[in-house]
């Protein structure tokens, strides 16, 4: 701030409060709707204050689910989402840190080719090659499995680049010292590289967990068995009931539960989240 202008300060606060309100508005509505009884929506106007049915709505959804649309209990769906998000995050970090280690600390034939093969994945988001990718997974018999949900999303150039950058900033002297002490490559990797990149791994983990939890198109395609439904993809299936008005109070309870874990991660790990976001875009 260059000079003191009280009017601008007030304006800035007003803009921010308005921004926060607009950003929070749909979530507020969702929370309100999730505490209401089904007949509250028939009056034609959405109520704006919470109702008394929160506990029973959430309990129904978590334990029983919407049987009318064939959806399993949300507890199971959230567990599936958690398994998928964790496998994607951990799997991505593991395979990218290994390949970054190979690319930075070794010189071998086809090294540049390997680098470009990884780089090109940046240019092939799953949405643009969805049909052939689905066919590959179907041919491998990976439909309706946790492997099918997570492995095809594990390759990532951004994570590899991030670790490559981290490794490039680690002084060469550390490697010299380790070699003089008789450490082989894997010992160096385990005892020096991994501890030094721990915060980067944590930051990346936060971003990848959100990425994995929020996957939509992929789980929608590879799961037809309701035991493997994830919550984000499952909500759409609940809202799509034909011949009946959607049970908005239950759907909004599902919406709130679907966003709760990643939002809590962002709020409580904001520093790591921001670090991860900025680093993965370099």
């Amino acid at each position, binding site marked *: 701030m260059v000079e003191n202008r009280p009017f601008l300060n007030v304006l800035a606060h007003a803009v*921010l409060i308005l921004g926060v309100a607009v950003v929070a508005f749909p979530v507020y509505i969702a929370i309100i709707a999730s505490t209401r009884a089904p007949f509250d929506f028939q009056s034609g106007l959405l109520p704006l204050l919470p109702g008394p049915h929160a506990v029973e709505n959430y309990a129904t959804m978590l334990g029983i689910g919407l049987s009318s649309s064939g959806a399993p209990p949300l507890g199971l769906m959230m567990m599936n989402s958690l398994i998928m998000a964790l496998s994607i995050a951990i799997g991505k970090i593991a395979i990218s840190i290994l390949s970054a280690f190979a*690319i930075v600390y070794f010189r071998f034939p086809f090294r540049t080719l390997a680098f470009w093969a990884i780089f090109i994945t940046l240019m092939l988001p799953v949405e643009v090659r969805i049909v052939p990718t689905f066919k590959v997974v179907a041919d491998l018999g990976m439909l309706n499995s946790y492997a099918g949900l997570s492995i095809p999303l594990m390759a990532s150039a951004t994570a590899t680049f991030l670790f490559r950058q981290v490794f490039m900033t680690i002084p060469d002297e550390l490697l010299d010292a380790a070699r003089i002490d008789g450490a082989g490559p894997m010992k160096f990797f385990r005892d020096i590289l991994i501890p030094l990149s721990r915060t980067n791994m944590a930051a990346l983990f936060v971003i990848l967990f959100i990425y994995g939890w929020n996957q939509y198109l992929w789980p929608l395609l590879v799961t037809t068995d309701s035991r493997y439904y994830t919550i984000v993809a499952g909500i759409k299936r609940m809202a799509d009931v034909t011949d009946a008005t959607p049970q908005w109070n239950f759907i909004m309870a599902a919406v709130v539960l679907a966003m709760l874990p990643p939002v809590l991660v962002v709020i409580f790990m904001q520093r790591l989240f921001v670090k991860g976001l900025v680093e993965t875009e370099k």
Partner: protein
Amino acid sequence: MDTKRTIFRHRLLPYFLLAPQLAVTAIFFLWPAGQAVVQSFEREDAFGLKTTFVGLANYTALLSDPDYLNSLKVTVVFTVAVTLLSLVAALVLALAVDRMIKTATGYTTLLVWPYAVAPAVAGVMWWFIFNPTIGLMPYLLEQVGYHWDHSLKGTDAMILVVIAASWNQISYNFLFFVAGLQSIPASMREAAAIDGAGPAKRFWTITLPLLSPTTFFLMVVNVVYAMFSTFATIHATTQGGPAQATNILVYKVYNDGFIGLNLGSSSAQSVVLMVIVIALTVIQFAWVERRVQY
């Protein structure tokens, strides 16, 4: 592409280290992408028994297909609207936070969390708010004389998906704008203030030009986001309707491939999209190289 000065000498180990990543990349990225390219030159008969090579026929069919041209137009409108709305809103919020000293972190926390909400979930929430029978917004709009119905009116549907998609993206842009603003030296703004430039003048002549690298980067990221990551937003809300008013290219690829089962056309569309992503990625990286000089 550089390595370290000192390196390990090992013949096989690096291949073992690379194997998992390369396997996943080859099986789930390169092979399907190759399949898409091959299929885009082929036509499959109605029973999927016989495929024939048809050259560029799928591509020429695309370019003369009014539905595809419409989808292209819809994508441009949608992308421009989402990029503009989310960039401008984020910039205004970032400028406001930049004035704050004590409350900056608090406001930031309250503004960044929508990034964590899945686009599909955001779509369902906005779908509910704009629901023509019970939604809050149609009720309010009715009071000022506008009859909202996104299941019939194309423009209403477009506004709905633009709002839902932008809502998700504002927090991301906001964080990068705040970082960009903080990297502008205060001395420049102070010098301009001493020379008598008011806040508005300082914004247009100093802040905005110095922010242009961030803005350009965010523009590319937002275009990529609006074109490719909003599948869920569309699928969870309008499903491309009404009358294809929100049928963006990624949604059409899915729809023609999985629902319409027109593999040749869907593959040709995939290839077109890949070319677009490659072009955008090249632009983004060319910019990263340039940024080093700043």
